[in-house]
């Protein structure tokens, strides 16, 4: 692919939850037999903002300001979107999952126990894991995004209620979620923050 103008084209968003949402605790109004849900369309560009972290490795020979080496210290990613044509039940589920997940039978808006780990130390898409993956399609540019492990963060969502169309502003944070291996170690190497492979239904 050579250089060119980059135009993503229409961008549909999908989300995938842990199985407690899609199978045993289906989103109201949405078929409960699938794990991949259509969130909707934005009214303007979706903004993807990676945040890279580096740390200087100072040496006295270089003085206080300049470093002879820098350490890579990981990354996260922020995604902002203003939804105009979307599924409010899926949005409800996203909001609740971002609050630590909701218990079976609870109404939306109910807090999970404070301090609950979002991932619950289980693999992505497993029951009890409250991270969500976000898929942003790209049928024109053919460069879709899949963010693997995220949630709505502060301020997570603004929902204007009134007679005008409700443009819901969402602010996502995606992190490189990882679980300890069999030896109890957590390795950052190779953890996927985003890729261009879209989720599939199970």
């Amino acid at each position: 692919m050579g250089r060119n103008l980059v135009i993503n084209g229409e961008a549909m968003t999908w989300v995938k939850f842990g199985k407690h949402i899609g199978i045993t605790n289906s989103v109201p109004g949405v078929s409960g037999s699938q794990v991949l849900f259509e969130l909707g369309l934005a009214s303007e560009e979706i903004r993807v903002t990676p945040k890279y972290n580096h740390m200087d490795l100072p040496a006295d020979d270089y003085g206080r300001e300049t470093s002879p080496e820098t350490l890579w210290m990981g990354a996260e990613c922020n995604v902002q979107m203003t939804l105009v044509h979307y599924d409010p039940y899926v949005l409800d589920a996203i909001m609740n999952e971002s609050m630590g997940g909701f218990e079976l039978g609870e109404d939306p808006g109910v807090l999970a126990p404070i301090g609950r780990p979002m991932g619950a130390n289980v693999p992505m898409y497993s029951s009890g894991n409250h991270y969500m993956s976000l898929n942003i399609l790209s049928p024109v540019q053919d460069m879709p995004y899949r963010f693997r492990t995220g949630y709505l963060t502060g301020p997570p969502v603004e929902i204007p209620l009134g007679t005008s169309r409700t443009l819901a502003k969402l602010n996502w944070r995606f992190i490189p979620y990882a679980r300890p291996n069999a030896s109890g170690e957590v390795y950052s190497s190779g953890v996927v923050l985003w890729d261009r492979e879209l989720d599939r239904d199970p």
Partner: protein
Amino acid sequence: MARNLFINGESMVYVRGPSGDADIGGSSLTQLGLAGDPIQVQLGLRHRDVIVDAWGPEIPMDVQTFLSDVIINMNLVHFDRTILDACLRMSMGGVSTVGLVGRAGRRLGSAVGGPGLAPFTAGNSYIGLIIDSPVAGKVWRFYSTYLTGNPVSFPLGVERSIVAVQFRAIPYTDDPWGASLTHGGTAGTGSLNAKLWDHPATATW
């Protein structure tokens, strides 16, 4: 078709509304009426410049199209007032009685909170508009229109009333993504092939 003088000839205006409407809800066309002078069809093509610094700030190196609407102005002189009232009702949110307003924020394509509805289904208030052309044979068929701007200017007096009417046509569709979801694929054509107008061989839907 070779070049020639183009004369549209007499232009009957037909409308079609949502299914179930008592005045314009049939599956066939309903006559709105005849204009006293030429009907004006103005295409509103939208474009936006793609500016690159290498070309400076004034002239684009490419231009993007951002769809189009159409404004149709006509001065009706021989028309059906009941049908004009029906067009006004549809354009005010699909109310049952002309002169009443609909709910603020109601979508013309569907009820508030409801899904987008296909044209001519009950609950979709857009009006199909046809300008017939028996002489030139170039019928204009607009799929989703409504009365807009100052939609109607209605002179009341002893002279014949020539009513100035302005329609706006948009490329409405009940699915802005452009295709049903195909999981794992990249289906979705957006606005591609959404219907704004066409030229059918005869004045039919």
